[in-house]
């Protein structure tokens, strides 16, 4: 089997039969979201460098994942890894929620409890990501099972990296998903690196989609920088899933163009040449070209999209930056649904200490 590519690096459709039948509005929305992801990334870097935000997770080069969101229904579930902000944006997360989260301020829906970039939103069934690698893969299989059990027709999609295929819960998720024939879609964002560890040191089976064989599940490999390949592969997988035919593994071959996070220095372990090779495969560039060729958008329209979001983002950042951090007392919320007496006591102790001395 060969790697599925529909939209090539020049923005051309390789096989007209595979060109997705999507409305202009949908396509433009998808581009808008990809641009937002890119700009959130760039803004995040700057904020982190300025010390206004504590940490940054790079997403550059992996924005084609937005194709997944186009293929899903509103009631489907998504478990992101941590570079799939596009799914959340496409499904309608408030950009303000993301920005407040980055600043971990009092309006952060997650109450300032997570590293910037690790957010979820139940309104759009975008599950709050963990940091331990791989754990979400088997959880997603369980959520998919819930849809099967209820017969609600829902599908659960889960993202994870190439490094995550080595985790315990990749094995568990694939196995439990397949043996229960749950409507799950496993999407490996194979960006070639797990921090400094290259794929060749991660596994001796570097064609990750072939790992599906071990679980009796179909596996497909796609160009992970091609939004249409995503759309196509996910759409097919949802159909199988909704037909009761069980899960699919999709390997999206892409590249982590940026550092792992703001704490990482990739010059220690990889060459610039390799990175440059991938820059030309940029998923946004090619999609823009396609839309321009198609006559859906002009260069100017696209510039306007950037400018519009830039403004929105700047406003949100200004506002978010001014807000205080969550109140001290919130530390004790959400450990349990209700604060039990022993924790209430600890809370009072801290609050009274704070009053006296802080």
């Amino acid at each position: 089997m060969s790697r599925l590519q529909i939209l090539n690096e020049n923005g051309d459709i390789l096989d007209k039969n595979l060109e997705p039948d999507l409305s202009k509005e949908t396509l433009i929305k998808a581009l808008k979201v990809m641009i937002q992801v890119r700009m959130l990334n760039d803004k995040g870097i700057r904020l982190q460098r300025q010390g206004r935000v504590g940490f940054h997770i790079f997403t550059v080069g992996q924005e084609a994942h937005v194709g997944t969101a186009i293929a899903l229904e509103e009631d489907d579930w998504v478990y992101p890894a941590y570079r799939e902000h596009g799914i959340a944006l496409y499904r309608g997360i408030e950009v303000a929620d993301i920005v407040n989260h980055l600043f971990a301020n009092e309006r952060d829906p997650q109450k300032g409890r997570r590293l910037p970039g690790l957010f979820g939103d139940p309104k759009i069934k975008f599950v709050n990501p963990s940091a331990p690698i791989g754990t979400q893969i088997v959880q997603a299989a369980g959520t998919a099972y819930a849809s099967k059990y209820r017969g609600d027709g829902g599908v659960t999609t889960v993202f994870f990296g190439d490094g995550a295929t080595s985790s315990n819960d990749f094995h568990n998720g694939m196995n439990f998903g397949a043996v229960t024939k749950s409507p799950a879609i496993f999407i490996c964002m194979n960006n070639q690196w797990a921090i400094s560890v290259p794929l060749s040191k991660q596994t001796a089976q570097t064609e990750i989609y072939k790992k599906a064989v071990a679980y009796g599940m179909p596996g497909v490999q796609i160009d992970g920088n091609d939004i249409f390949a995503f759309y196509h592969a996910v759409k097919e997988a949802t159909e199988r899933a909704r037909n009761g035919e069980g899960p699919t593994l999709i390997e999206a071959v892409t590249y982590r163009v940026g550092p792992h996070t703001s704490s990482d220095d990739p010059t220690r372990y990889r060459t610039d040449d390799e990175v440059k090779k991938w820059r030309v495969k940029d998923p946004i560039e090619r999609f823009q070209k396609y839309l321009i060729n198609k006559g859906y958008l002009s260069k100017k329209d696209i510039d306007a999209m950037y400018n519009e979001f830039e403004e929105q983002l700047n406003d949100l950042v200004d506002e978010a930056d001014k807000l205080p951090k969550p109140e001290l007392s919130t530390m004790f919320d959400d450990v349990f649904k209700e604060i039990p007496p022993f924790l209430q006591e600890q809370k009072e102790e801290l609050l009274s200490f704070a009053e006296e001395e802080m």
Partner: protein
Amino acid sequence: MVKMNIIEAIHNAMELQMRENPDVLVLGEDVGPNGGVFGTTRGLIDEFGEMRVIDTPLSESGIVGFAVGMAVAGLKPIAEIQFIDFIWPAADQIFSELAKFRYRSGGLFPAPMVIRSPYGGGVKGAHYHSQSPEAYFAHTPGIKVVVPSNPYDAKGLLISAIKDDDPVLFMEPKRIYRAFKEDIPEESYEVPLGKANIVKEGYDVTIVSFGAMLHVALDAAEEAEKEGISCEVIDLRSIVPLDIETIGTSVKKTGRFISVTEAPKTAGFSAELSALVGERWIEYMESPILRVTGYDTPFPFVLEHEYMPSTGRVLKAIRESFNY
């Protein structure tokens, strides 16, 4: 009223809850046609079908992680870990995921579910079918830990656990699974989580225990009575949340304290109990704050009865405490 042992009471609790709430399901190794290696799920698959009573692959991380995903979607899974000694492959799903899901999401993603598992020694189970790891879970904020010591509580606590809005680890004292029967109501009832039970009143020494060890504590207390030492015996029932008030009331009355737990001594839950007494009620104490526990070795096999707290060892501690 029906007469039930702990196994039957647990079975009955699940059966009733499954009838009442279609979101409740059971999963684990051998829980289907085999009915669980101890029989706690026997027959459930016949009544509820294999979509709701799931024989899983052999992976505890899979079982718990899969259940967490169900809970995220609003179901209420009861995950069985065949022996609690085999819970460690699931440690990441419990410590990093289940216990933290609600908190880390700012309350947006609760994932309440129940993990049931037989624990404890005294059944010739050796190294890997005998351990009592409550302390690991008690030290993990976000998960409740419950241990019944009798059929009535087993049923009522498990029903409460299933109805609870938080994750609950329900540890089952397999040593006394079939040790005795009690009259218990046929219908559903709850024993609240977080409330200890004063099993025996007394005024000289407070003894705190739970699960299978409660009975050892009680036996020793009865022996002590014959020697004229009056012991108050408290069955914690819940380890988290802990009923600190009931312990405090007792300690203030007796001024002497012993906890009895079967896990290794160092950093066991008994240490937490001692620490509470030492920080809150030291002024009432008339003698050292004692622990009777397993030793700091892996669980042995032929020497298990020497390893575990026995009536004799508890009695010795009672005398020491009283005659100090």
